[in-house]
């Protein structure tokens, strides 16, 4: 069984982001980019499943401009067997990503698709669900535990939901999106980095896959959240009541 893992190159989680002066987006020049943390977790889970013998191969997939190859290399250094890079210079929204993944699934025919639950730059949390809908596959999102059963060809997924944990049993092939507590991703060791240099990255374009990229969404404006105002020390209860009444108007 092959496992396909979709990974995204985003601004590194620990970087302090700045909004561009023209408010069209976030500053990405000279900013450290890395693999989306949830995608790392998804890839780690796929690798663990492969290492336990339940899968034969892990394919890492990413889409975007040429720089995306750096992130793909990280994925290969972690242990993915091969990778596919879908070259597209512009921004891709979840529906386009899902359509491209569907086309790739029809070529590669994996038994399981792993994704991160959401990307930390747009926080959409849509791609996994959309691709499950397009393929008409069962989905286990916000997974915090995944157990595969080879004979029965099912996956038992614990999902983190508002009320607690929900356990689902999915028939394979299925789509699973990873949440934070699924696992701790591994570091890229030097021997693996060396091996990654000889692993194949296949390059495709959306035209090759016969997918038309058109977006129904346009980002109009990006602004920073309002700055938090400093607190005010009051010297007596009367002053507090006065402020609550007249300034905050909550009393």
């Amino acid at each position: 069984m092959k496992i396909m893992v979709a990974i995204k190159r985003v601004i590194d989680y620990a970087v302090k982001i700045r909004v561009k002066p023209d408010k069209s987006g976030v500053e990405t020049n000279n900013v450290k980019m890395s693999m989306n943390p949830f995608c790392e977790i998804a890839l780690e889970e796929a690798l663990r499943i492969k290492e336990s013998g339940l899968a034969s191969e892990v394919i890492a997939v990413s889409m975007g401009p040429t720089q995306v190859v750096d992130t793909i290399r990280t994925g290969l250094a972690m242990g993915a067997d091969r990778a596919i890079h879908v070259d597209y210079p512009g921004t891709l929204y979840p529906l386009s990503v899902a359509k491209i993944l569907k086309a790739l699934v029809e070529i590669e025919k994996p038994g399981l698709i792993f994704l991160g639950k959401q990307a930390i730059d747009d926080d959409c949390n849509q791609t996994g669900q959309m691709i499950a809908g397009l393929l008409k596959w069962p989905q286990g999102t916000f997974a915090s535990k995944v157990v595969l059963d080879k004979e029965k060809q099912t996956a038992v997924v614990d999902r983190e939901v508002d009320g607690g944990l929900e356990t689902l049993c999915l028939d394979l092939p299925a789509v699973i999106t990873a949440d934070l507590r699924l696992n701790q991703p591994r570091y890229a060791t030097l021997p693996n980095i060396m091996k990654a240099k000889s692993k194949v990255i296949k390059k495709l374009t959306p035209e090759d896959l016969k997918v038309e990229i058109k977006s129904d969404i346009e980002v109009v404006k990006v602004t920073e959240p309002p700055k938090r105002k400093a607190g005010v020390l009051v010297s007596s209860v009367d002053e507090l009541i006065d402020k609550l009444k007249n300034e905050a108007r909550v009393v």
Partner: protein
Amino acid sequence: MEKWRAADRLLKFSSRFASGTKLTCTIINYDHTHPLVSECCFFPIPFYCCKSKQGKYFYSVATTVHRNPLFSIISPDDISYFKTLLGERGVVQDALALDAANTDWMGKYRGSSKLLLQPKNTEEVSQILKYCNSRCLAVVPQGGNTGLVGGSVPVFDEVIINVGLMRNILSFDKVIVSGVLVCEAGCILENLISFLDDEGFIMPLDLGAKGSCQIGGNVSTNAGGLRLLRYGSLHGSVLGLEAVLANGTVLDMLGTLRKDNTGYDLKHLFIGSEGSLGIVTKVSILTPPKLSSVNIAFLACEDYTSCQKLLLEAKKKLGGILSAFEFLDSDAMSLVSSTTFLGTENHGQEVIKDKHGQDFTSIDLRALPLEFWYSYASGSIFMENLEAFLLHSVESGLVANGVLAQDINQASSFWHIREGLPEALMKAGAVYKYDLSLPLEKMYDLVEEMRVQIGPAAKVVAYGHLGDGNLHLNISAPAYDDNILAKIEPFVYEWTSKNRGSISAEHGLGLMKAAKIHYSKSPETVRLMIDFDYCVFELLPDTSCLDDNHSIICLCLSA
């Protein structure tokens, strides 16, 4: 001859005392009779001399200390004066707060001060010192109290002057390539780092204690840290400082100029003086630009010789981009992995074992030094250079295995391991800490000899700034034990001295190593230090009483 000269100084000095008492009572009773030590006996500036052991906190076997009766005891009048000067907030007499200020970070040294003062600006510091000088009250300057040699806490009941409230950043100037930051001495290093981060710059020093240590203390102790390899010591980075001398004189040497060759550059004497010449109140420091590409590799080497070779190779091939080069041995690694502080996430411990455990156990060597280094540069060419260098090292056998951080979080977790070592040692029980500068080839020999010397009684853990030739030797035992101490000292100091190393590379002398200075400095040098110190105070107007608990041999401010 020496005794005559010293006696002459004594007589000259004693006339300065209001009561005219001779200083014969300041003679030290050291248990050992090193010739230099008896010279110090006549050190005219009053400081604490030795008498009785102070409980389990002192562990310097030969020296014992007692309070010099020439210093006054704090009276209620003094307290009311300070309250008028500093306000209620500036005078702390609360037992809990005093306890924290009286004890050092290691929990090894405890003073019995009854008064903690918190001035808010240089003027207040000056007034405090002027008053203490007139009343003959001993003081100890204190910053973040993170020092490791007992220099930041009172020995007896000195007044603690804590500059923690002086934490304004006064100005920041982005000048061509580097920035110049001017701030008050009480600014916490981590706060300065975050401030500069927003501006696109970094501090030239970084240490594990950054969350608590203050820049005034860092400067006064010439703190080293993790970035010394690339940015040099504070002697190079500090452009100017403002200090207050013992009689309240404010010495304004706060320049922001890169070059200023007008006379003796006195700020260098204050840097590393551990507060013995004055209290630093403002600092002006050169800040390098933040570079966009930072990466870090954690490598395992088979033995110490490979570590050395790797350092030389790294300096040659990566010269410009190498920022830090640290090492820790396998004992250190297992200590850090076993203390649960690493596991901020549940799987923290497993993570280290899974990712590294198999690699380590498969290489069966008793002491498996690890390396750990860190590069700063810009662009992806840097990544290629770095990877190429690392892969070459693996192929040539210098490196047995290793990991390369793929994002900032992974990088911080590597630093977490290295920076968390002192804390892990504290949690493991009692620890005897030594900070030594040694020639690169000999460094690990000391560790191995120490292991033989101590035997199974305690664990010898070694780590340090390999790039600077600085070893942090720690002996971890379940509890403080004089038998273990006897095996360590003076063996470690003599070994260091024999190899012309320094008994204190970056921690300073403090109370712990004050009497050991002769292991690393010649008698003539120490004599000149004493003479100089005496001169500074003799020449100050109105110094009726030397109130700083200072001298090169006993001292003060730590970070």
